[in-house]
């Protein structure tokens, strides 16, 4: 399940949604808004996406993961818009027959999301300065 949403991510429901009878391991990864990046303090982040391409890339990433691990269910949700420190910006939940595969697949998925999906964040500092994060 792939979703971009402006709303807070219900990661409990998301975790429930990937549970499968044949799967003995569920891994949930949450990306949260971090206050400090080096010495730079962030008050909130603004996330923007290129939605049709982001959804396509997310689906490709899921398919790629499914070709590598015997995944039961996959859920990737990225929130867009403004998020303050501590809020969940992205959630990845996977189920697999065994835990090692679930951990590996979740790690693969979030790494690929950060590498390939056209989504961007802008850091907003306490002094009102803001800057897009472009690597």
């Amino acid at each position: 399940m792939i979703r971009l949403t402006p709303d807070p991510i219900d990661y409990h429901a998301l975790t429930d949604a990937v549970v499968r009878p044949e799967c003995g391991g569920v891994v949930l990864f949450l990306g949260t808004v971090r206050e400090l990046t080096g010495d730079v303090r962030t008050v909130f982040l603004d996330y923007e996406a290129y939605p049709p391409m982001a959804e396509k890339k997310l689906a490709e990433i899921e398919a790629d993961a499914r070709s590598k691990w015997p995944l039961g269910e996959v859920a990737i949700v990225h929130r867009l818009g403004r998020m303050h420190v501590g809020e969940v910006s992205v959630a990845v939940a996977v189920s697999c027959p065994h835990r090692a595969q679930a951990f590996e697949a979740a790690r693969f998925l979030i790494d690929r999301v950060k590498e390939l999906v056209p989504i961007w964040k802008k850091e907003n500092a306490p002094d009102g300065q803001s800057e897009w994060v472009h690597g």
Partner: protein
Amino acid sequence: MITLTVLLFARAKELMDRDAVSVAVPSPATVGDLRTHLAAAFPPLAVLLPRCVIAVNHEFAEDSHGLNPADEIALIPPVSGG
């Protein structure tokens, strides 16, 4: 000449203060040609452009990729989701 519309995001959108730009390029045109004409037509984008990927119809495209006016073209700055 053909006119190509390029969608802008994040810093590129902010630099141009709009979410798309149009640029005329000689036909036939490639992604590489588009890069050259974008940089010339929109100097604020010139510094960011070399770090961007061009997406055509929701797929990352090489500089050799051919373009036509019906394509959905987007300038993709280095991504920072997550």
